């Protein structure tokens, strides 16, 4: 009887101690006002992404450290971020593009209902871009979400950057890098 009681007490305790710390770290990010669960995008389209970028936690800190020597501006920007999430989907047909647009509409409405502001909507010659930001109480940006449906390049891209973001800084630093094809990133995706 005693042994049963011990087991009954120990098993949940051990289970909690095993899984609680990483779960807490994950929960902390998920509670962040700038975070968006990328599964919503995948579920909305009903298929997995062909491109996945998930950079957060220790890896993000390592990337910041690695860029410190050659690009201190980038390192400074990355130190203020908590996560970078990207999902890319190829658009094989016009129906794929319409589905991606419907998904962007649906998620956009959902974001706006949860305190996000649409700061940019562009419908331009086969390219559709929706950008949302969420601000904190002190007006600093806590997160950024971008939906792109580009029928010229047959791709749909979702980006969520969590953390203290300065769009001007992103634009300035981003201009210094070459943008390759999505395939190049897909090859390295982890």
């Amino acid at each position: 009887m005693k042994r049963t009681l011990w087991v009954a007490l120990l098993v949940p305790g051990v289970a909690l101690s095993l899984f609680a710390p990483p779960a807490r770290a994950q929960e902390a990010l998920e509670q962040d006002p700038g975070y968006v669960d990328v599964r919503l995008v995948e579920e909305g389209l009903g298929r997995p992404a062909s491109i996945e970028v998930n950079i957060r936690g220790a890896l993000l800190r390592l990337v910041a450290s690695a860029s410190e020597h050659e690009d201190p501006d980038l390192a400074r920007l990355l130190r203020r971020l908590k996560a970078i999430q990207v999902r890319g989907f190829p658009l094989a047909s016009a129906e794929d593009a319409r589905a991606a647009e419907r998904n962007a509409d649906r998620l956009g409405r959902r974001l706006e209902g949860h305190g996000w502001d649409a700061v940019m909507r562009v419908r331009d010659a086969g390219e559709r871009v929706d950008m949302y930001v969420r601000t904190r109480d002190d007006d600093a940006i806590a997160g950024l979400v971008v939906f792109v449906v580009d029928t010229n390049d047959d791709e749909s891209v979702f980006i969520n950057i969590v953390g203290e973001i300065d769009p001007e800084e992103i634009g300035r630093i981003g201009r210094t890098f070459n943008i390759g094809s999505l395939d190049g990133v897909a090859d390295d995706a982890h």
Partner: protein
Amino acid sequence: MDEQIEAYLDGLLTGPERTAFERRLAADPRWAEELRLARLVRDGLRGWPRPSCPPAVTQAVLEQVRRAEARRPAADRPARPRRPARLWARVMRPSLAMAALAALVVVATVVGRVQQPPRTPDPQVAAALEEVQWTLAYLSRLGRGTGHTVRDEVLEDHVVLPMQDALQAIFKEPSR
């Protein structure tokens, strides 16, 4: 989590703690990944060259210690010992020793930073850096492309069309 991983890497966990930690590693790949990254950082730090203090700086610090000792009243000074090693041991009072040590640490840190070569990042970190750069470049391109569009739309809606309306009203053109 970070503290436990550091303690594990430094061998500071007790037997049961270590066993529990290794069980966690086996049960959750996220722990294993965090451990791998922490090990990477540690090994990277160990790989850095150990900075050496330039002889001239060492000499200057020691000279300062000797001068400070010489300025002390003779009564406070220890009697001259017979062996140089003992003299040094007695002269190096804790406060002076600490001051000299602190100076050496500062100098070594500065010299070490100057001499520190750029390191080659881990392939996973390099790939992540590439992804970060790609994402920023992509966002930047969107900003530029859409900047033109927004500007054109704003100009069209708020400048060009109102002006046309105003001109048409003035000249009473029936075209609209």
